[in-house]
């Protein structure tokens, strides 16, 4: 029989027992909807995590430290080119790293202890300098106030926990001033007063001078845009990187420099942050940096673990979602077996009129396929609605908790297509047994059936 006639007959048969077939199709739809909704949650969560992490710059970032930094005993790293001598992380090194291919920017970690004075009360915390690129990291989405007006602005953004220490109403802090007390390094020329002709660069140390700076609070942020790294705690007060650098505040690595007798006037960094164009270039870049005599560390391994975690998570969601579809499959088998019983005589007539076994088999197959297709299409829509409902419900809850809304569920086009194809394939598999049973019916027995 031609496909068009086959489909026509199948649709006619389905219409004949419309209630039963509609209920079976609804069963498939619910199964597909549960599968799509579950997987859309998995995809949504994965996207959410990836977006946040990508925007935060963690996956396109390499942290570079000197090889012999004071970080205490730890597991030895697998080094590339271990023969390379340890090099200081200075301006020259920074410039060299900037010249590497696929590097967007290289900026130092400026991070120091400070005492903040606000309304005549002292508060100890850590300050971190943030480059201009942090503006689009996603960490400042939904913040109260705004990002720094420029990299030279004397402005501060407070982390919410610190802002709560300062005031019971963190919102009210935006626009107010605070005073930053910090320790500025001041180089001591070793030959000072001795009349030596040695240049200042070869000086042996520096003194610590307490300084103050007034900053205007321009924002309060709920995320942690500068998490702790390299032994320094999480920064609670954020400044523009350029402003923070100009302060020449004493940092942790200064102690190392003075012990080694390195030039106090020469700027060295505790660590540099190198940003690659894309996360895929991080691995090669990391190897290249290590070969230049520095320690390099990236979160690439963490991102691989994350992908593995989400693959397992999606599989589990898929399995739970498929349970409903498995039940729906049994519904299809039941419906078609019932149809064979009801249409036994009709099958006999078809065979008497010249239908081959394959015609009868295909007819039942198409009926199963049509139920699968309609159920799949309806189910994908229903799954999308379910996903939206979960997102809306979650966002309502988050709003009540004064948290930012998130896109919890996401139905990409491939999930819709996969849901539809899966429904049809599963329905066809479910139709295998009834179709083969119908095809094998003895026409003489079928014609005698009352």
């Amino acid at each position, binding site marked *: *029989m*031609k496909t068009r*006639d086959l489909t026509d*007959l199948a649709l*006619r048969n389905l219409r*004949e027992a419309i209630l039963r077939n509609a209920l079976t199709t609804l069963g498939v739809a619910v199964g597909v909807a549960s599968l799509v909704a579950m997987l859309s949650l998995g995809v949504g969560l994965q996207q959410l995590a990836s977006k946040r992490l990508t925007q935060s710059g963690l996956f396109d970032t390499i942290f570079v430290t000197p090889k012999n930094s004071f970080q205490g005993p730890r597991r030895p790293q697998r080094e590339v080119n271990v023969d390379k001598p340890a090099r200081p992380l200075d301006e020259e090194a920074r410039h060299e790293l900037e010249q590497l291919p696929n590097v967007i920017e290289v900026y130092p970690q400026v991070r120091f202890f400070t005492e903040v004075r606000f309304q005549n009360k002292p508060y100890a915390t850590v300050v971190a300098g943030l480059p201009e690129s942090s503006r689009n990291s996603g960490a400042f989405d939904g913040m109260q106030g705004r990002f720094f007006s420029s990299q030279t602005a004397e402005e501060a953004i407070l982390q919410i926990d610190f802002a709560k220490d300062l005031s019971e109403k963190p919102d009210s802090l935006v626009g107010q001033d605070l005073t930053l007390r910090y320790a500025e390094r001041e180089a001591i020329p070793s030959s000072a007063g001795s009349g030596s002709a040695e240049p200042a660069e070869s000086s042996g140390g520096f003194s610590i001078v307490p300084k103050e700076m007034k900053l205007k609070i321009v924002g309060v942020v709920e995320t942690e845009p500068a998490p702790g790294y390299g032994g320094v705690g999480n920064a609670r007060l954020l400044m523009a990187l350029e402003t923070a650098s100009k302060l020449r505040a004493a940092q942790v690595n200064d102690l190392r420099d003075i012990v080694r007798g390195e030039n106090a006037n020469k700027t060295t960094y505790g660590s540099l942050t190198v940003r690659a164009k894309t996360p895929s270039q991080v691995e090669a870049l990391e190897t290249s940096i290590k070969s230049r005599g520095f320690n390099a560390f990236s979160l690439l391994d963490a991102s691989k673990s994350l992908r593995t975690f989400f693959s397992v998570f999606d599989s589990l969601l898929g399995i739970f979602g498929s349970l409903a579809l498995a039940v729906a499959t049994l519904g299809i088998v039941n419906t078609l077996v019932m149809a064979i019983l009801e249409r036994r*005589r*009709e099958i*006999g*007539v*078809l*065979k*008497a*009129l*010249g*239908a*081959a*076994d*394959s*015609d009868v088999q295909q007819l039942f197959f198409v009926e199963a396929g049509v139920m699968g297709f309609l159920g799949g299409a309806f189910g994908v829509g229903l799954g999308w609605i379910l996903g939206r409902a979960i997102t809306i419900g979650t966002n309502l809850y988050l709003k009540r908790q004064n948290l930012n809304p998130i896109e919890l569920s996401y139905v990409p086009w491939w999930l819709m297509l996969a849901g539809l194809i899966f429904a049809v394939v599963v329905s066809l598999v479910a139709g295998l047994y009834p179709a083969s049973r119908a095809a094998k019916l003895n*026409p*003489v027995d079928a*014609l005698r059936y009352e």
Partner: protein
Amino acid sequence: MNLMADGQTAVRLDHVSRHYRMGQTSIRAVDDVSFSVPDGEFLALLGSSGSGKSTLLNLIAGLDRPTAGSILTERSNLAELSSTDLACYRRNTIGMIFQSFNLLPRMTLEENIELPLRLAEVDRSDRSRRVREALEHVRLTHRSGHRPSELSGGEQQRVAIARALVNRPKILLADEPTGNLDSTTGETILLLLRELKTQIGMTILMVTHERPLAERFADRLITMSDGKLQSISTTSRGTTA
């Protein structure tokens, strides 16, 4: 290749048997039956219930297979055909009508008659013309859009005849076509069959237990009893023919 030596035989049965097993017992529904049906003949198979006449008709229709013997048609021995080839034979060579009409209730008359054309993959453009022709043969053109349940028994059987004719078969097999009809309507149906046989020139094999009707309309009578062929006789019509 024409399997019939004379070229004028529609179907020939050679020592055909059909045995069933029911537990330990073997039932001989058809037992060593041999006869030939010439082209264009109206043959009636007579016998009481359980005599094996319907089983024999099913064997000739290719709905069942003989346990022994051969059923030769113009082109093939049905006993040797695959199930797909048998389906093809049913589609193209024979037409069947039944005692209970066997029309599909959810289809209109037109759609019921179109069904064999769909199975034979006849072009859509040809179908409506052939359905109309078949309806004209049975004089039911005006009821084409009706459903079987809206028709009388006689009309339903006429539709079944139209459905059997639409693929222009060589042989028409009728299994008790008047069994569910009153005597007047039964006569009308047999008159119609006779008329179509003359018009189209096809062979008719009819199973019936109504001897008087068979004698009036058939050319030849074959009587069966307990699966065996009891007698073959020619009617007055057969003699005249």
